[in-house]
């Protein structure tokens, strides 16, 4: 057994141990902390699968932004009443659930072990058509050219999630800002971090979007890092969540899907098909869309973490 294999097996055991902890831990907070560690380990697994784009997404969204969301929620729920004993599932139910889950796992494991060889793949098709887009990163090609319709709908899902979260606001807070007031003085340590980190973070975020055309990276990953930078200035009380009635905020939220749809519709006239790019203009158009998508993601993620408005609107 080579060292790399030993490393893989160790990593697998570790991922499963931490995952089991998130399920079986007695305290909710311990489970959430374990989930953050789990996201980090998962991005190592993705690197071992040579899926660096996915590893970047998992690191930024799966571990970073989701971690802040869940830790915040677990902290606010600390005072919640413990669930009643009657809610605990009975022992037979747990046994049945256990048997069911073992069966599901075994079935999936059998499927994994009996996958066809050679594996079916779309890589040759992607490689063949990639030249037409002018891109070097096949994943960006799939996201923004070959399956752009999926990506556009996924941006719409993000907007719908924002609508869903905002709709949970009390009537009196409608039009106000999410989060509690940041009236307290910015505190030194955090303020320092929030002043030093964003300049470098914005540089790295933009770099990741820019190289995404040819190397691992892209609008999702870079946008998530930019979102994290905005979040850290809010966590240090240097900036506040904007009120949800703010026009620029709403424009930024929909700019990604709106530009995407507009260019898709323009494709009918210009290139003879919905979401078709005119020959020779594919790469500039894709970069144009990616720019607005990055903006949308960078604004949407913190808004989703911020939750529904909780302050009275200014009148």
């Amino acid at each position: 057994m080579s060292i790399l294999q030993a490393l893989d097996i160790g990593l697998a055991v570790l991922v499963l141990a931490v995952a089991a902890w998130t399920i079986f831990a007695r305290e909710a907070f311990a489970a959430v902390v374990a989930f953050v560690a789990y996201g980090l380990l998962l991005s190592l697994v993705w690197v071992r699968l040579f899926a660096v784009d996915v590893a970047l997404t998992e690191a930024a969204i799966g571990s970073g932004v989701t971690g802040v969301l869940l830790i915040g929620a677990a902290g606010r729920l600390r005072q919640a009443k413990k669930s009643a004993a009657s809610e605990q599932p009975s022992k037979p139910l747990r046994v049945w659930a256990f048997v069911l889950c073992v069966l599901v796992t075994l079935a999936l494991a059998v499927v994994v072990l009996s996958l066809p060889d050679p594996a079916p793949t779309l890589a040759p098709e992607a490689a063949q058509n990639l030249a037409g887009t002018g891109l070097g990163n096949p994943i960006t090609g799939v996201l923004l050219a070959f399956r752009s319709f999926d990506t556009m709908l996924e941006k719409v899902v993000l907007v719908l999630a924002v609508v869903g979260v905002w709709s949970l606001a009390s009537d009196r807070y409608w039009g106000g800002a999410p989060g509690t007031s940041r009236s307290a003085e910015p505190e030194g340590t955090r303020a320092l971090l929030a002043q030093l980190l964003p300049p470098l973070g914005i540089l790295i975020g933009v770099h990741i979007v820019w190289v995404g055309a040819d190397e691992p990276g892209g609008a999702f990953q870079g946008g998530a890092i930019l979102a994290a930078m905005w979040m850290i200035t809010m966590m240090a009380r240097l900036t506040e969540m904007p009120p949800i009635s703010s026009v620029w905020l709403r424009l930024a939220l929909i700019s990604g899907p709106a530009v995407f749809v507009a260019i898709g519709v323009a494709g009918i006239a210009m290139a003879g098909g919905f979401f078709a790019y005119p020959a020779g203009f594919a790469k500039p158009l894709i970069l144009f869309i990616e720019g607005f998508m990055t903006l949308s993601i960078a604004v949407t993620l913190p808004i989703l973490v911020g939750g529904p408005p909780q302050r009275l609107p200014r009148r």
Partner: protein
Amino acid sequence: MTDFLLSSAGFILFTVAVGLVRILGGPTNADRVMATQLLGTGGITSLLLVATATGVRGVDDVALGLALLAAFAAIAFVDNAAAPEPDDGEGANDR
């Protein structure tokens, strides 16, 4: 050299992981956050070592991204879970 880098990566990941699995049990939530922090640094380090050993492109960006977000869990923890008394959440009194 490759084997050396990989063994170092494995060794670091596992010392850190042993710490994590042991510390997740508590005593305090602060210890749990510290253990996650150590796993983060250890994970980034092994990522850099494995990336150099196997030559997968773009892994340095993953390490950079993880390093940028390293402080997030701890700050969210201090903001929300470590405060002695949670806010009563009455937004109306804020302003």
